[in-house]
């Protein structure tokens, strides 16, 4: 690819010739992704899929994420407006059940056993059920936020990049401004203003989370819109909207998907971090970070006390496992689509 094209995506920033760190990647020589083949989306996706299938790490990640998601969906029955949508209950107990109320032989902080594979927490609740169920919060928030932010970012970036000029200038200034804040801090303030809760968390991470996508897509669009087929479409009098959505957006998808897959992990960590700070879900809910907040005191025991490690290790490990698997998938998609190294470094901080 040529330098001019690469560098022009970095509007208003430094232009570099001969080298661009953000574009560096171990590019296999066979990689088909050049502007000449950009139109052949179909074959490209197919090729990527084949390559992804060969990536063992990514497949492991995919199965872990799939398994965790299934487990959490089937953890407890789901009832929506009185109709049982999902009747199964893999988790032996309701995450809120205080076990000692029914069975006096159970006490708080019971160690893992056959009956309670992850032990009992400080309120006398079954940890296994809670960890399984807890994924509902983290995982669903992760996916919902990413879906919202990626869609909005896609539109925002596409408009900004396509129209250019003053529109672009102003829209990108907005992005630059939001970029000046770490996402976690913005989320903290949003929760502080709106209060805790599921949809508040979604909003807290969505409200500003789209900027990464916006900036990325804009860069891609700038690249694509100089392509012959876009110019041709324009010359043939196609409307802006159809150019953006039929030609530009699909071609900007690969980096978007990579970023989205990596971003889910970031959001999940962020949700857990807010939970840990007491600004996520209400206390007592089985959200992973909130569970860690409540068991934090137990790490330091009085003399002779033994740490109920299960209370800290399992929820923490669940977050880690999910995020790790998600990142493995992201890396895999990245390699498969041969998009640039994106995203994973962006936020973090949980």
């Amino acid at each position: 690819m040529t330098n001019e094209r690469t560098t022009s995506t970095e509007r208003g920033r430094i232009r570099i010739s001969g080298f661009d760190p953000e574009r560096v990647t171990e590019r296999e020589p066979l990689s088909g992704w050049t502007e000449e083949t950009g139109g052949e989306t179909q074959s490209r996706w197919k090729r990527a899929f084949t390559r992804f299938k060969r990536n063992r790490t990514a497949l492991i990640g995919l199965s872990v994420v799939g398994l965790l998601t299934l487990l959490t969906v089937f953890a407890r029955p789901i009832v929506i407006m009185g109709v049982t949508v999902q009747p199964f209950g893999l988790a032996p107990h309701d995450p809120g059940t205080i076990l000692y109320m029914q069975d006096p032989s159970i006490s708080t902080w019971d160690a893992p056993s056959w009956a309670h594979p992850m032990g009992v927490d400080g309120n006398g609740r079954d940890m296994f059920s809670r960890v399984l169920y807890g994924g509902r919060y983290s995982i669903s928030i992760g996916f919902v936020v990413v879906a919202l932010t990626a869609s909005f970012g896609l539109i925002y970036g596409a408009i900004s990049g396509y129209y250019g000029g003053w529109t672009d200038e102003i829209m990108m200034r907005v992005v630059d401004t939001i970029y000046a804040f770490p996402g976690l801090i913005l989320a903290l303030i949003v929760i502080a203003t709106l209060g805790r809760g599921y949809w508040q968390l979604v909003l807290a991470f969505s409200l500003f989370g789209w900027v990464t996508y916006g900036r990325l897509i804009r860069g891609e669009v700038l690249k694509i819109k100089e392509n012959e087929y876009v110019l041709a479409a324009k010359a043939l009098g196609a409307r802006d909207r159809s150019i953006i959505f039929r030609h530009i957006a699909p071609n900007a998808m690969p980096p978007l998907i990579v970023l989205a897959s990596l971003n889910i992990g970031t959001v999940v960590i962020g949700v857990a971090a807010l939970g840990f700070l007491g600004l996520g879900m209400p206390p007592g809910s089985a959200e992973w970070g909130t569970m860690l907040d409540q068991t934090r005191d137990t790490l330091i025991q009085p003399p002779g006390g033994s740490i109920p490690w299960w209370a800290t290790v399992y929820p923490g490990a669940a977050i880690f496992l999910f995020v790790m698997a998600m990142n493995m998938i992201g890396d895999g998609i990245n390699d498969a689509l041969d998009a640039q190294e994106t995203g994973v470094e962006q936020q973090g901080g949980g």
Partner: protein
Amino acid sequence: MSLRRFILKRILSIIPILFGVSLITFALVHLTPGDPIDQMVGVNPHVTASDEAQLRDRYGLNRPLWEQYGVWMGNVLTGDFGQVYSNGRDVSAVIMMRLPETIALGIFGWVFGLAIAIPTGIYAAVKKGQLADDASRFIALSGISIPNFWLGLMLILIGAVTLSLWPVLPPSRQPLYHPYMLWYLVLPGITIGTAAAASIMRVMRTSMAEELNKEYVTAARAKGLPEQTVILKHVLRNSLISVVTLAATLTASIVAGSVVVEVVFNWPGLGRELINAINGREINLIMAITLFTGVFIIIANLIADILYAVLDPRIRYD
């Protein structure tokens, strides 16, 4: 364009962003409909009716929002961030007191991150495709995936409680540069630096790998230069430039990480202050810390860009 003109232009370019940052800070607090004084301050037990009246007066709360923003901005520009309700102290004094602590922690995180990441990144790039490379990739991925606060808890558990190598409490009476203090900072430093280290390592590895494929390397090798010289003298220098770019992005992640890490390690910095401010509904403090964070990161980005321009002679200026 000369370097000097580039720098000047770059500095001027942050003015609208600074303006935007203040706008966002203000807007966030006014996120919910209604009077923010009722929303947030109204439930702070330390805020008396006269405080409230004063606040309404100060921000002109019956006036349109943009006018209120103007009043607030005017105060901020004269260095007046208002007071902490619970004790009546100046918000700016509180920030000045907490700032050095957070900076010390951030620097430690940075030092740790770079010290681990650069050698590992080089090693991984040189051994590309081998077991060591796979292992380092895996570790880097873990570093990104592990929640900061959980890592911090685990480090306290192992380093301070089980092994007793570290004190659990920050040594409060020592100046920040005291060796005892520096020793204490190791655990929070590791915690905060891990995610950064993992990211830097990945970038280091890829950019090194890219450099190693360049013609000048082949040429140097062909000339018979020892591999070590090639890597350390030529490749490394060029790859490091990309790390500088990453630096700015990671400053944001370190600032965000400091919130959680300061809470875990009981470190009296700005992050812990922000959480306290949120729990205590100290609206002035929340706005000031948020604004401060934004400005800090903008300046960090600016410095990184300038540094980058100075370091890399291949750069053309816009």
